[in-house]
């Protein structure tokens, strides 16, 4: 597809054009109010903890149709942070603030005849306005909502979040495709490219306003770096990310094709250290920092052909740190402590 095709698709599938087509400028105002409120809500509420649905709506017509009264208190999203939540319903008042509401008495299509309605359920989200209904495009494969993509101030924080949000439960749709089976025991052959693309996309969406994130093609072990990150306005800074994975990979017929253990982790650290030295020599005016990401998919007592695993075996390595010798991160200041990211399996007990 070329850009014109993407533009055509975005015009016909977009939620904002639908709201504008249904209600004109008032529809655009409403959908932007709703998106802002959703962003604010999802900063406080972890969507994994929402068992039911989220509905946010704003009446467009008739004039003054809002049900907010002067005595209503606006929603305090911070108070929802540690609650277990079933359903959340908010109406946006004429002041642009969100007010908690009971479950609507009419169905969403009927509500949308006079309102712009946002509806989230089980990671699917949509807008309804007038007679139109559009799914919100999920541009970020790791996020649980298009409106739950935070911005991080630096790469270290972003990597910690990537571990928790994308890798631990294989939540990222892209990352999830590394597995050879539903229970996440074995990897498909050659998962490196998927891991690199998943992390690249995650970083671009979260630090991409002030950093350029470039995926690299690994040509050989002398050039092992997977991702380069440049702060936009600081030309002499360069952050290099190397990714290695541990665990077992299998071919399509199920036979094991690679077994990567601790030695592999050390090998990756050594490669990155050598590469950092080379880069320092070739670009002495640059401040270069190395970041080593280890996607840890190790399982205990895993045999070829296994399809299930117990919790003790599946989670055996979750809290088992890897010892490095030499530990480059202790010996030099341009090498961050390794970011080991354990990817949990689905266990049978």
């Amino acid at each position, binding site marked *: *597809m070329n850009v*014109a095709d993407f533009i055509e698709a975005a015009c016909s599938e977009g939620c904002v054009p639908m709201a504008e087509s249904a209600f004109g400028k008032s529809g655009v105002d409403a959908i932007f109010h709703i*998106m802002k409120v959703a962003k604010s809500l999802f900063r406080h509420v972890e969507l994994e903890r929402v068992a039911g649905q989220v509905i946010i709506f704003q009446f467009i017509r008739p004039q003054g149709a809002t049900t907010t009264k002067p005595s209503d208190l606006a929603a305090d999203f911070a108070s929802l942070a540690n609650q277990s939540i079933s359903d959340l319903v908010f109406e946006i008042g004429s002041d642009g603030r969100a007010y908690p509401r009971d479950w609507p008495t009419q169905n969403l299509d009927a509500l949308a005849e006079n309102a712009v309605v946002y509806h989230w359920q089980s990671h699917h989200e949509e807008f309804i306005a007038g007679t139109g209904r559009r799914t919100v495009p999920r*541009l970020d494969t790791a996020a649980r909502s298009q409106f739950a993509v935070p911005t991080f101030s630096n790469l270290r924080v972003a990597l910690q979040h990537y571990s928790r949000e994308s890798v631990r439960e294989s939540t990222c749709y892209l990352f999830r495709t590394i597995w050879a089976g539903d229970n996440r025991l074995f990897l498909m052959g050659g998962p490196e490219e998927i891991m690199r693309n998943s992390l690249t996309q995650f970083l671009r969406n979260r630090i991409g306003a*002030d950093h350029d994130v470039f995926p690299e093609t690994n040509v050989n072990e002398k050039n092992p770096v997977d991702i380069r990150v440049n702060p*936009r306005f600081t*030309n002499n800074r360069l952050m290099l990310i190397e990714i290695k994975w541990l665990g077992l990979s299998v071919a399509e017929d199920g036979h094991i094709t690679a077994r990567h253990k601790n030695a592999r982790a050390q090998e990756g650290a050594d490669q990155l250290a050598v590469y950092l030295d080379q880069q320092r020599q070739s670009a002495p005016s640059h401040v270069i920092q190395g970041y080593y990401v280890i996607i840890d998919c190790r399982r205990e007592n895993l045999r070829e052909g296994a399809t299930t695993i117990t919790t003790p075996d599946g989670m055996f390595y979750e809290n088992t740190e890897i010892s490095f010798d030499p530990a480059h991160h202790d010996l030099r200041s341009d090498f961050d402590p390794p970011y080991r990211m354990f990817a949990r399996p689905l266990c049978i007990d």
Partner: protein
Amino acid sequence: MTTQLNPDAAFDCLFIAGRLQVQTGTFTIPELHLFGYLACLLWLYRGRAVADWGYSFMGTELGAPFSVDLELAVTTLLDRGFLIRTLDGVCTSELAEPSVAEMGSLSLNKDRVECLDSSCASTAALSSGMVGCALAQEPDLRRAQATPMSRLLLEDAARSQLFLQFDALRNGLRSGDDLRTPAVVWLTALYRSSVSAV
């Protein structure tokens, strides 16, 4: 090298800073350039002349938009206490809001405010990072990336591809006149094209 404060750049800087602070809590200096450039592109979408924007942008070696006038405005506004440095970036002080309100209400800034407002509103639909990724696919910034040297953006010869994309947007949207709609639709399309390129 510009040494005088450009009033348009100073206004844009304060306007964008105020909006980003409300919408995302904090912001960085590259974001001011990014959303300033997006506003300038939306100015072109409205059919106005790039010369009337009041200041120019360059594409850095990394393919990011950068304006010398905006940078000088940021430095001046920091010196004068309108902007304050924080651990994570920059924030506005209490001096900023009255100035923006006063300048923004002037009829001569009406068209400018529409573009700035639509540019910043895009952060409701996409994260700042996504806007950055999307704009990196804008035809002139793509050229800047391909030729790693700083050069002026949006010069005459470089705008034809951009205008083709704007034509495609106008044809696709047909009805409606709210500038926030093409802003979000265009960024979404550019972002998707960037992902397909990874």
